């Protein structure tokens, strides 16, 4: 009876620990900063395109993150029309490649002098170009998990933990007026855990997903305007 009680208490503790870890893992702290430089607004026939900056040497903005922000902008009853990044880059080739893309909104005016660029931009109905620059990095990785494979079976034991930090900045350019209308930056951090008792149980903080969600929502309300 006592042994049974002990086992139940042990299971309860392990369950409690896992629940606690899951709750902690779910906690991601996200901050969003907005800097408005001009008025915005968008008509129903106009669209936006979100492009990732890829000029930096040892990192680049992930196309998955750019797609995620685009999906967020397109969601809901007030969803915006978003031109897919790759479709835009291919149609605009070679003007928006890493080495040839305009770096300042003022350069847009020079680019729009090119007849093909202006025509393609008009065909897409692009009113705003949103440049997203940033990345997610993993910091403070601690712990270790060892796994063993034997003819009789396999199993892992140990514990790992790490912190993810997603930092992204979005610059919004008005294609009609060739100027920058604002910037929104988002920074999300979260702790992930991976306890392993026979099988590893990943308790992953959804850092990049949260950054995408918050940035997407903020961008949508920014573009819709005020």
């Amino acid at each position, binding site marked *: 009876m006592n042994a049974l009680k002990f086992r139940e208490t042990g299971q309860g503790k392990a369950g409690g620990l896992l629940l606690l870890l899951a709750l902690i893992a779910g906690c991601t702290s996200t901050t969003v900063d907005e800097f408005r430089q001009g008025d915005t607004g968008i008509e129903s026939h106009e669209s936006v395109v979100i492009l990732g900056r890829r000029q930096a040497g*040892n990192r*680049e903005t992930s196309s998955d993150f750019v797609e995620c922000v685009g999906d967020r902008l397109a969601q809901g009853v007030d969803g915006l029309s978003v031109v897919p990044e790759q479709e835009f880059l291919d149609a605009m*080739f070679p003007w928006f*490649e890493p*080495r*040839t893309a305009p770096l300042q909104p003022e350069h847009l005016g020079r680019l729009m002098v090119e007849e*093909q660029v202006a025509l393609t931009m008009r065909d897409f109905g692009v009113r705003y170009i949103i440049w997203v620059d940033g990345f997610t990095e993993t910091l403070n990785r601690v712990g270790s998990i060892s796994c063993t494979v034997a*003819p*009789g079976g396999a199993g892992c034991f140990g514990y790992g933990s790490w912190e993810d930090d997603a930092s992204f900045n979005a610059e919004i350019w008005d294609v009609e007026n060739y100027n920058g209308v604002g910037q929104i930056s988002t920074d999300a951090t979260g702790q992930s855990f991976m306890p392993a008792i026979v099988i590893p149980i990943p308790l992953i903080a959804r850092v990049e997903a949260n950054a995408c969600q918050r940035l997407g929502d903020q961008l949508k309300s920014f573009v819709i305007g005020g």
Partner: protein
Amino acid sequence: MNHPGMAIVKLLLPALLLSACGASSVVISGSFPTPNIGKLPLSLAVVYDDTLEEFTYTEYSETGQEEYHIQSGQSHIELFNAILPAMFDRVIRVDAVEEGAGAGVDAIFVPNIEEFQLALPAKTRLDVYEVWIKYNMRLLTTEGDYLADWVLTSYGKTPTETFVSTETAINDAAIVALRDLASTFALSFAQVPEISDWLANR
């Protein structure tokens, strides 16, 4: 008594040992968009010589073993076949410079790869695969004399990702480098001083 686990280990062990030997082969493949630019009023013959067509780069491991054979000749030809017709009024392919003389063209274009470099995360400790390519571009008269001879470089990178093989990542980085070549070539062709002078005197 034979345990089923042992049978799997016996089966997998030779495969694992074999996979550790020899270099992996990567044939660069991808699609390239047509440049959205105005055409130059020129007719051009293009020569892809054997050194370009059969270009293969070999990456060696730190112990000097052949690690990867990267075949990128055909992908370069596909790239030029996509961009040249968008840049010039008429483009024909000829097998040799001499053939261009009777083809009724304004000039003969001969692209070549001079150098290929690969940087792998395992060696650089960076989270990206990188490809650098250096080209020698030649534009010749129909008589085979030099109109212009210039160097172009291209660069491509792709981040490391879980569940993406090294071969796929090398291919992706090379395709980015090829797009970089296409964009630089398309936008800088008429700005090469010798070509600019030649175009102005036509």
